[in-house]
């Protein structure tokens, strides 16, 4: 095989096949996928994310949450995603059309977050968990995100309404309080917006199985 041009063309041709097959064709098939309108209820799914949650998604990206948390629910009977309550149905392509960066993830050092907004709607829980995961999930290896919070002296007007409720060893020194920063608020807004359980023709929700 000493014929250079043939080698050259062969090299280009082989990669061209998957470039067309796995890049261009999928883009044609799914690149313009839109929202689905339910013919009975006129409900539109998926809804676009509100501004604050949209900004939170940028923090989720920047903090690298995707390296330990997936955002994909595998089909029923394949893995235990549904049994663990991570979703009522598998996720499908349409669930991700609004994501600026699609963060499916490949590692489950922590649990899946596809529907964390539905599973844990309490913002106060999220703040305490982010501040130090040991407060809510003892034995977790998630790093504490203290840098998303300000510890400051309680002002003359008394404790701020948005101060974290921290007890025991996690409590700040007397006279101090822990307040979420704007970043923490946006990140929690994003986490609470994570819900992929709309009824879709390609992924119907089994009503009786809702957990």
């Amino acid at each position, binding site marked *: 095989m000493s014929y250079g041009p043939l080698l050259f063309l062969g090299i280009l041709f082989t990669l061209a096949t998957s470039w067309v097959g796995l890049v261009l064709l999928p883009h044609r098939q799914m690149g313009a996928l839109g929202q689905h309108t339910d013919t009975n209820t006129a409900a539109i799914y998926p809804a676009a994310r509100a501004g604050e949650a949209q900004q939170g998604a940028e923090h989720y990206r920047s903090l690298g949450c995707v390296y330990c948390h997936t955002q994909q629910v595998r089909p029923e009977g394949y893995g235990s995603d549904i049994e663990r309550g991570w979703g009522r149905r598998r996720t499908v392509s349409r669930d991700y059309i609004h994501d600026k960066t699609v963060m499916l993830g490949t590692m489950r050092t922590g649990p899946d977050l596809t529907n964390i907004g539905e599973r844990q709607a309490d913002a106060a829980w999220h703040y305490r968990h982010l501040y130090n995961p040991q407060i809510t999930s003892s034995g977790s*290896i998630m790093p504490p995100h203290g840098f998303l919070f300000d510890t400051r002296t309680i002002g003359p007007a008394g404790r701020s309404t948005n101060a974290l409720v921290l007890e025991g060893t996690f409590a700040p020194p007397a006279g101090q309080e822990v307040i979420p920063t704007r970043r923490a608020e946006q990140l929690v807004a994003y986490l609470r917006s994570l819900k992929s359980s709309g009824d879709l023709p390609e992924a119907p929700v089994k009503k009786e199985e809702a957990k």
Partner: protein
Amino acid sequence: MIKQSQTLRALLPGDAGANIGNKSALSEIDASCRVPVLFFFLSGLAWLLAGTVLALVASIKLHTPGFLAGWEWLTFSNVRTAHLNTVIYGFASQISVGVTIWLMCRLCRIPLVAPGLVTVANLFYNIGVTVGVGGILLGDSTAIEWLEMPRYATPILFVSYALIAVWTIVTFRLRAERHLYVSQWYLLAAVLWFPWLYGTAQVMLLIEPVRGVVQAAVNWWFAHNVLGLWFTPIGLASIYYFIPKVIGRPIHSYYLSVLGFWSLALFYNWNGMHHLVGGPLPSWMITVSIVASVMMLIPVITVAINHHFTMLGHFGKLKHSPTLRFMVFGAVSYTLASLQGVASALRSVSEVTHFTHHTIAHAHLGMYAFFSMVMFGAMYYILPRITQREWPSNGLISLHFWGVALGIVLYVVPMSIMGFIQGTMLNDAAVRFLDVVQFTLPWLKLRTLAGLLLAAGHVAFVINVGWLLVRMFEPYRKPVVRILTGEAETVAAAKLP
């Protein structure tokens, strides 16, 4: 330069009885490569040390989350991502380019064209990696696996890769040796494939991001092909060159190497979607990738047979040649990594191993036990030739080999087992998630220990390389350590330049 190579051609009276002319031509080629190849190797090794420190920090953080927890820029995700990008783009890619340059010149039998320009490309490239890794640590990571460097860094790298590709094609066109050796097919393929992959990924994910899960498809088409179409061909090109070269015997079968090359070219680039088994993509895409992954058995077994039969009867030489020792370790690991990869692509296995440390172990079996070991082996051969000095310390070579060999075995074997158990536990909804986390802790501590062994090996190697460089500035003396003697004597028999 071209003029010089013509003189060289005149100096080369063909294969027969041209030993002296041949040797002086080769040393002229080696000398032309000296500065740029040294730049690629040394900056690559600097990034290896940085990547090793980042790896250790990330490993410790995973079992002791309080470790250095106060600094946002050192958060686990940042350190882990910075580790991946320093070792992939800083270390592995730069050593690859250095080895590619040297091998291409030798096999084409021409001195390096415009070595000064290649050195400038190297500096440019290192600026790109520094900006990219800095951006990741500052929170600008794109969170797209293997493409985390921010948008303002990747074009610098792309231009460098494109320049290296152009340069390799120019060398190839000007070649004095018309016969093409199998290593050249792989090298030419790698330098043509990579800019295409990197360019597509940048346009479709960073510059003008595509919508929805098409991003995931492009991401894994790219990321898997970085391994399959960039590192693997360069690793195989090196094995195909260095094993015959060191043992002084031609490759076992020419036809097997043709089959191995074209089947790899056909099937590897379709593998990527096996990273998304069970995910929200059309089934046809995932199925196609699983089928292509299984088809990888053809090139893998072909190459394994070819290398094994080349080595057969020469295993005794492993004792004397560090190059051969690292090469054979890498070649065996390539087979094992590929078989593990084929197995993990199957739906039934992926159900367990996907999302676990099994995949992390697999990545290190491929990138380290195969690829990095082969690159170390290549450097053990190339560095003494371009510096014209022998390796200063035999002990440091042994420390390097045993440190990294034991280290990577202690990494890959336990982590593969642990990942499998972890996956089984995750698939049993009756097991609490936090119990799965607790189960992984002792294994993660073992990984830190393995990382320390790898680090010790790296330090030993870097000291030896540094020492070699110091010797470059000393007048030449007769070497005390004659570790490479065995190689030098048998080189002619392989009939490779």
